[in-house]
């Protein structure tokens, strides 16, 4: 059989480190270790992705509380339910797509129904990976939102990754964290708390853009462009997608009359759907448009390429605002 022999003149870790683009900061992983040091109930489970889910430090520092589940996500969710029933608070880790789609029935029956404090942590949200369709979570928010008792959280960026740990722990039952790793440039970024309510990042009277995750930055950029064209819009970071801050959604829709929802996710079942459901049931006659993946599978590619090709960028938000404004105009004309 083949046995491991080491490279001629360097250690394995030297070798891998040399080739890497540089270590990525571990905003989430470091916060999880800090929380676990304070709360002995916290354990981490991981389905063979310690590096990509930032749990490598946890594995090194708290090895007796780190449980490697192997490439077996459905089993891992069941195991986490077992840990939770024994009084632990398990954080389970894989890519977004695998902890949701691949273990959905297990999440529903063993985590959501019994309201267990299992914190389901996924990475690679939406179109942020070269690994293609199999690794792109375009429907995870829809899936998790549809489960009773589930809280769905998506940080706006690296600044809220640590806050996601706090938010998950402050929520008594099951939580889904939809995470995107910060790049090397985000090292040392000042952390911001992650709110249960919508966070108004910019105020403007002409319209409102509700955004989550990667789309928050795009929404702020779109707002700059719109401002140059004379439309001063509000931008709201919705980091807690479920339960949605419906009061704020209704209030801003009423006061601004034009609403755009933007997300790095399918237009079906995610933030855009949640906002639309809220507005219809509240009877708010706002102009409305969604920005998201248009009910299609995508492909592997760099993040900027994918975000542009699949219509998730700032210019797509600007265009959506135009559609929503036209619709608003039509509504008002119809009324007159």
């Amino acid at each position, binding site marked *: *059989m*083949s*046995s*491991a*022999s*080491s*490279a*001629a003149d360097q250690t*394995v870790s030297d*070798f*891998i480190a*040399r*080739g*890497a*683009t540089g270590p990525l900061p571990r905003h989430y992983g470091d916060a999880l270790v800090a929380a676990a040091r304070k709360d002995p109930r916290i354990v981490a489970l*991981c389905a*063979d*992705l*310690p*590096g*990509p889910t930032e749990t490598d430090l946890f594995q090194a520092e708290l090895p007796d509380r780190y449980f*490697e*589940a*192997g*490439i*077996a996500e*459905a*089993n891992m969710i069941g195991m986490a339910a077992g840990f939770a029933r024994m009084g632990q608070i398990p954080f389970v880790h894989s890519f977004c*797509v*695998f902890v949701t789609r*691949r273990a959905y029935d297990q999440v529903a029956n063993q985590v959501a129904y019994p309201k267990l404090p299992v914190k389901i942590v996924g990475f690679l949200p939406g179109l942020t990976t*070269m*690994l*293609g*369709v*199999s*690794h792109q979570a375009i429907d995870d928010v829809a899936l998790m939102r549809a489960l009773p008792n589930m809280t769905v959280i998506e940080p706006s960026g690296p600044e809220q990754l640590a806050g996601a740990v706090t938010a998950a722990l402050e929520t008594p039952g099951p939580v889904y964290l939809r995470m995107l790793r910060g790049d090397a440039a985000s090292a040392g970024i000042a952390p911001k708390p992650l709110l249960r309510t919508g966070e108004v990042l910019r105020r403007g009277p002409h319209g409102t853009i509700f955004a989550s995750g990667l789309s928050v930055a795009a929404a702020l950029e779109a707002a700059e462009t719109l401002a140059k064209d004379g439309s001063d819009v509000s931008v709201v970071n919705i980091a807690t997608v479920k339960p949605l801050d419906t009061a704020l959604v209704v209030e801003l829709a009423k006061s601004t009359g034009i609403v755009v929802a933007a997300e790095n996710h399918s237009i079906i079942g995610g933030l855009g759907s949640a906002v639309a459901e809220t507005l219809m049931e509240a009877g708010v006659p706002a102009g409305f448009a969604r920005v998201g993946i248009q009910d299609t599978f995508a*492909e*592997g*590619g*760099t993040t900027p*390429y994918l975000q542009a090709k699949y219509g998730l960028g700032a210019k797509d938000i600007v265009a959506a605002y135009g559609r929503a404004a036209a619709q608003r105009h039509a509504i008002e004309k119809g009324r007159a």
Partner: protein
Amino acid sequence: MTKQETRARERQPAPRITDVTELKRIAQELRRQVVRLVAPTGQGYVQQGLGAADLFTAMFFSELRLDPADPAWPDRDRFLLSTAHNTAIFYATLAARGCLPEASLADYCKDGSPLEINASERIGPLIEATCGSLGQGLSVAVGMAMALRHQKRDARVHVILGDGEMQEGQVWEAALMAGARKLSNLCLILDYNRMQVGGHVDNVVGLEPVADKFQSFGFRVETIDGNDMDAVVGAFARARAHSEAPTCIVADTLVGKGAPSLEGILGHNMKLPADLAARALKELAGAGA
């Protein structure tokens, strides 16, 4: 046997290479291609590709019945790469066998190219199923083997699985089915390179005794050195000749095989900077056939 079946059996548009020395030479060339594909961007899986080069060479140049000019030929043997990320070696092999234009390799992992890291059926019918979510390939292979039998076609189904991938429960559901249905037209190759993302498979969730497991599931099992071309070609031929049960070939492979500076390094998604790639290419040029 119907007329159509006879024709299927006789048709072998891409002639099989039986000369093991020639197969070894091809494998060595494919290894160089793996390094060339992965080096420029660091995207792709160099260690796995070098380890599995002999399996891919024997599979595509000696074992599979296929027609590069007619990739959708209904009587082709099916090949599935369940570890769909191992595309550096897969695409290098497909191109060398005339199933992909050589020039398309220049676009490997580039935006817009169908040659993604995880093999997608965007490429065409030779990607029999899109398998980047680990644990799913064997189920599809079992379905294909059952359908081929149902349609009275004599084509075979080959599927490569990773050792880490064996941890997925679905693999064992499929294996139970294959054994229960005695799918002798199915050949599972376990690329047992001992590596997964978290390091050595035994330090994650070990598989041993894996040969016994498959045996107890109703497979005919062979354990071979997956980097010994004679052994690989022989194991494929014996699988083809057997008519009672599915075959599982437990192929011990060495990550980085052929480039001594890379051999045995458990770097799952290892980057390959230019100087180290150049050294590996030099090693690969000197060694082998």
